[in-house]
């Protein structure tokens, strides 16, 4: 069976500095992988490289999404093929209403996949259902995307986008940062509802706390641009006790 995501010996530079140093990782359908690691380890860099952010140079290795060469695709094609990155810092877009943005994103993906666009009433209905589940005020949908939203509202909004777009591979970059415990539960609940046999997830986090709510199948430690340890969910608890100091020496 083809893996959902296969990262082989990935090396990448940003601003002339090598950040990813031969990272390998395989995610199968239905699996949730957590990536933990100290600040500056390259967690966000990995997520941006996967999503296709400009400014990152791939200097080695390859990544296959459902067996297809990810780096041969533009960022929007990757999204249409089912890759979704929940941003650590979601961006504010003044002048673009949240609903307009959701419609544009969903319909662009459907067009690219040769599916019919969703009609406005159907979209509206779907977005309202999802908003309710995520405790998002429907008024927020008319406001410009993320403008003036609190940290928690932004993360809920990312989760809403993810739920609406129904991606195959979700990459969540520090979804827990800036969330109080109530907001964290709401967001984690939204994520858990997306668990499905055909879907895989990479949950990036600095703290173990999030993994109490989104329970992973596999936990990896990312340090100095590589996966340095892999284990079960107990590894997260262990890290909570010991911290990352033991891995800091790897940066060489």
């Amino acid at each position, binding site marked *: 069976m083809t893996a959902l995501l296969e990262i082989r010996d990935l090396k990448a530079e940003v601003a002339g500095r090598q950040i990813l140093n031969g990272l390998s990782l395989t995610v199968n359908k239905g699996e949730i992988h957590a990536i933990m690691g100290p600040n500056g380890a390259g967690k966000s860099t990995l997520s941006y490289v996967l*999503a*296709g952010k*400009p400014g990152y140079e791939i200097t080695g290795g390859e990544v296959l999404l459902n067996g297809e060469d990810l780096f041969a695709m*533009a960022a*929007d094609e990757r*999204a249409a093929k089912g890759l979704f990155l929940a*941003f650590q810092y979601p961006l504010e877009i003044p002048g673009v209403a949240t609903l307009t943005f959701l419609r544009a994103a*969903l319909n662009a993906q459907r067009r*690219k996949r040769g599916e019919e666009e969703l009609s406005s009433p159907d979209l509206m209905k779907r977005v309202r259902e999802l908003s309710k589940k995520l405790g998002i005020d429907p008024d927020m949908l008319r406001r410009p995307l993320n403008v003036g939203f609190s940290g928690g509202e932004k993360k809920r909004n990312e989760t809403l986008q993810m739920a609406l777009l129904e991606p195959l591979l979700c990459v969540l970059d520090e979804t827990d940062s800036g969330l109080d415990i109530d907001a964290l539960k709401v967001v984690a609940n939204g994520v858990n509802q997306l668990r499905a046999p055909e879907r895989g997830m990479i949950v990036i986090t600095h703290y173990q706390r999030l993994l109490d709510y989104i329970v992973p199948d596999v936990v990896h430690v990312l340090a100095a641009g590589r996966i340095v340890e892999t284990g079960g969910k107990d590894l997260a608890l262990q890290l909570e006790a010991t911290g990352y100091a033991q891995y800091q020496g790897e940066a060489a």
Partner: protein
Amino acid sequence: MNVVTPQIRTAAEQALVDAVDQHLAAVPIAGRVGELRRAAAAAFATHGLPHRRVEEWKYTDLRAILREAPPLAGPLDAASEAEATFKALSVPGAKRILFVNGALARPASDLLALEGGIAALPLDSALAAGEPMADRVGALAPQRYDGPLALNTAFLGEGLVVRVAAHAKIAAPLHIANVFTKDDPATTYGRVVVLVEEGAQVTLVESFQGRDGVAYQTNSALELSVADGAHVDYVRVQEEGDAALHLGTVMLEIGRNAQFHSFTQTSGARASRVSVYGRFSGTHSHAGLRGATLLKGRQHADTTLLLDHAVGHCESRELFKTVLADESHGVFQGKIVVRPDAQKTDGRMMSRALLLGETAEMDNKPELEIFADDVQCGHGATAGELDEDLLFYLKARGIPQKEAEALLVQAFVGEAIEFVEHDALRELLIARAEAWLARRA
């Protein structure tokens, strides 16, 4: 300028001087307005077209741009009128008055005789009949010499006078549509004089459209008086043909306790210049002057604004957005003058440009000239490219590059358009901007 440097006329200037002489003889106008016309002709003969050494025309060298002086368009024919009726911008719920190739198309126009508080009369008949309204021609003209306005006055004849009676609330927008349909270049001159009396309310729309590929010229002037307590919204849509030259002069006087909001949307013409002269003549009034300019190819568009806070306790807000694709060139010059007695003036001016083309260019020149001490004024200007991070965010959600760009451009101009209060007009402007973006993609 005190020193008048004698200037050798260009061929176009000479042709214009000759055409003015012919026009003065062919279309006589008596009385004060006739004299005004002769004075304008004499001023043009002396000063000619403005050029880059004239401060206000630094970025738009009209003497270099206006190389040909096409003749007046001549009498109107039925075919042109039919075409224009079909092509002219349609504003939902508006009364429309149509000028085709510079001439009033009477049958196709909703001319109004002080019906429900609004009267709109052809300028020539108003002049001939000695209408007091016609005597207001030139009343709002600036002191200093303005080349296009001098020509517009010298060629006075076609146009419209509009009066909105005191306290009348006019629900239907009055739309003055200008369409150029000819295959050969010609020049049109139109003068519109509007008086909105005390406490009256009206929405005025002017639109300019024309055939692509024809190097015609439009010279339009509007004199708009907003009396005490009046409330006026003015929308100007400039979508001239792609080879046209568009010269516009907008003169405003705003009385006491009045509200004035304008929005100018510009996407047409090879080259255009709109000069706005605004003056507060009564206290406690508010003016919002805003606009969006969308340029591509080698288009050039210049918006130059002079706002005179002649009296105190008035508020003005200016916001102009310019989108520049390809090799286009945008100009914004805005000057707010606050007179010594105009205490408690609150004026804010902002010009923002978005550069989409690598060789696109924006010249921004906002200025304040403040002679009073107790005022709040500010201005700013920015020019930048689309934000790469925002583009990436949109693309990461599956939106392709072109569509992502269009969304961000739409949002950029939308921040100005959203100030248009009239729902149908606001939607119309958004739709026109969307259509511009769709043509680009």
